[in-house]
């Protein structure tokens, strides 16, 4: 296949990828969008095989590895529980990063195969693009591995900080620039290896100081990085499909990071330079005296809800941990049978990744037109009878609106306290991620339900 023809096909698959993202603008068109994505991928892979033309004996291995990877991927996709989606996405990002590194190294060692010159005399532009691809890929890989370990609970979710951390990171970033320069001027492979090693280290250091509840930002950011890495490799390979895709994914991840930061009213740099736990430690100390809260049980909760005419449910990460989404859906079904209006209110940063709660509710067969975003539903709390907060905490804290001293001041929160009564399912009175007390606990109209989210929901259903 001539290279012009294959370039046109790569362009076609790039356009199909754009349509794939476009499809996600509404759930109705989303499945079609996903199909476009698959089609684009099939075209890109087929064209690559055809354009290489003369197949070496390597072909059989290429097919075997393709098949093995595909089977593993398909197996994971069918087995993975929806609650583990953040870990899965983090894991997948690390694979994109690592394959970018592998492709870059491969191109560095065998530039003839990619028409980039010969070893020791690689075209300057290609060398720069290669270094960018490899460096960003390596950062994506090690960063995603740390994010995966934190989400999976293998590594503690609390921020790990040490003195001189920012200084070290800055130093490493500068050394990347110097190494790239040395690499380009000397073509020595040693600099290439050091460059990749330092990049792995940066990815690692960048993510360890970030705490669990900031994971939505981290995942989005790594999503973005994986795109830029792909784009870097795309420039090296002079491949339009890769360049377009890299740009799409890069900007997609950047936008998601922005939305997540806005949801927490924090700047991107504030999140990246260390979690709440690191910078706001003074906030959690002080105010240690016990204040009275109203404690209820499943019967009280069932009584309140049975006599309500509208109920708003506020799910959070705790619901995911307790796997309570199906129990919740059963409770809601019972409520609806009693002609009680039920809606769901979702905060942008609820859960561990963008849209996490929506997927869990969808899994439990909750129709998506009963689920609302913060801006859509926040005015409805004042007219609702009961707010049922399950596994959320900081995102309901009225302190964010009233106390300028609070570390979460200014963060958009759900106006849960405006409801006639609030049911708060929680395992204990311990503060949430931000390390601050939730004023909501002590309000007169709040009833605390101390139990595992799933068990409590089931008990309420029995009592309805």
């Amino acid at each position, binding site marked *: 296949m001539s290279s012009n023809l294959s370039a046109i096909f790569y362009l076609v698959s790039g356009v199909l990828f754009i349509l794939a993202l476009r499809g996600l603008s509404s759930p109705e068109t989303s499945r079609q969008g996903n199909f476009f994505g698959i089609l684009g991928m099939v075209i890109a892979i087929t064209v690559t095989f055809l354009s290489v033309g003369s197949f070496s004996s390597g072909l059989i291995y290429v097919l075997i*590895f393709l098949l093995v*990877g595909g089977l593993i991927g398909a197996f994971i996709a*069918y087995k993975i529980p929806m609650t583990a989606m953040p870990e899965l996405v983090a894991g997948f990002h690390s694979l994109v990063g690592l394959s970018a590194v592998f492709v870059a190294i*491969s191109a560095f060692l065998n530039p003839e*195969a990619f028409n980039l010159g010969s070893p020791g005399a690689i075209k300057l532009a290609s060398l720069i693009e290669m270094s960018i691809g490899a460096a960003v890929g390596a950062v994506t890989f090690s960063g995603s591995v740390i994010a995966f370990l934190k989400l999976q609970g293998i590594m503690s979710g609390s921020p790990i900080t040490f003195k001189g951390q920012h200084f070290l990171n800055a130093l490493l970033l500068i050394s990347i620039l110097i190494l790239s320069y040395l690499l380009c001027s000397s073509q020595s492979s040693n600099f290439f290896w050091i460059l990749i090693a330092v990049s792995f280290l940066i990815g690692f250091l960048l993510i360890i100081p970030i705490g669990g509840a900031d994971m939505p930002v981290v995942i*989005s950011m790594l*999503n973005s990085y994986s795109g830029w890495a792909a784009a870097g490799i795309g420039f*090296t390979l002079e491949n*339009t499909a890769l360049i377009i895709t890299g740009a799409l994914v890069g900007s997609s991840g950047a936008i998601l990071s922005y939305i997540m930061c806005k949801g927490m009213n924090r700047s991107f740099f504030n999140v990246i330079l260390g979690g709440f736990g690191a910078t706001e430690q003074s906030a959690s100390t002080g105010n240690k005296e016990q204040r009275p809260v109203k404690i209820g049980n499943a019967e009280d909760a069932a009584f309140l809800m049975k006599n309500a005419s509208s109920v708003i449910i506020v799910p959070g990460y705790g619901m995911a941990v307790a796997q309570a989404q199906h129990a919740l859906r059963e409770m809601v079904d019972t409520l609806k049978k009693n002609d009680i209006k039920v809606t769901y209110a979702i905060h942008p940063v609820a859960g561990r990744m963008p849209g996490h709660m*929506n997927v869990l509710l969808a899994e439990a067969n909750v129709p998506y037109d009963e689920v609302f975003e913060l801006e859509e539903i926040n005015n409805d709390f004042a007219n609702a009878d009961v707010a049922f907060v399950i596994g959320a905490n900081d995102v309901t804290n009225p302190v964010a609106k009233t106390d300028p001293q609070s570390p979460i001041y200014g963060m958009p929160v759900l106006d849960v306290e405006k409801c006639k009564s609030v049911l708060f399912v929680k395992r204990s009175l311990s503060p949430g991620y931000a390390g601050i007390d939730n004023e909501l606990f002590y309000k007169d109209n709040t009833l605390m339900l101390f139990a595992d989210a799933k068990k409590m929901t089931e008990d309420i259903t029995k009592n309805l």
Partner: protein
Amino acid sequence: MEIDPFIFRLSIFILSIFIGYYVVWSVTPSLHTPLMSVTNAISSVIIVGAIIAGLAGSTGNVFTISNILGFLAISLAAINIFGGFLVTQRMLQMYKKKKKDK
């Protein structure tokens, strides 16, 4: 003077960033998780580079480091492609509208 092809690629890149910007803002927030998994899948189009690396070198020896890295990258990208698209499909199938009648 002729324009370096690099400039054309850069133009494609920059314009794609803008396309990405506007397309992604139109994605409904409830589909942000599928958005992440599908972007994950499509960024694995990096497999085209891996395939070229894996098929390189027409003579007998297909086990140079360059080839082996190509093979490994193919597997990693393939995990992502199949895993990413299938898990997105699985998620999207769960998004249902309210039934009109009970």
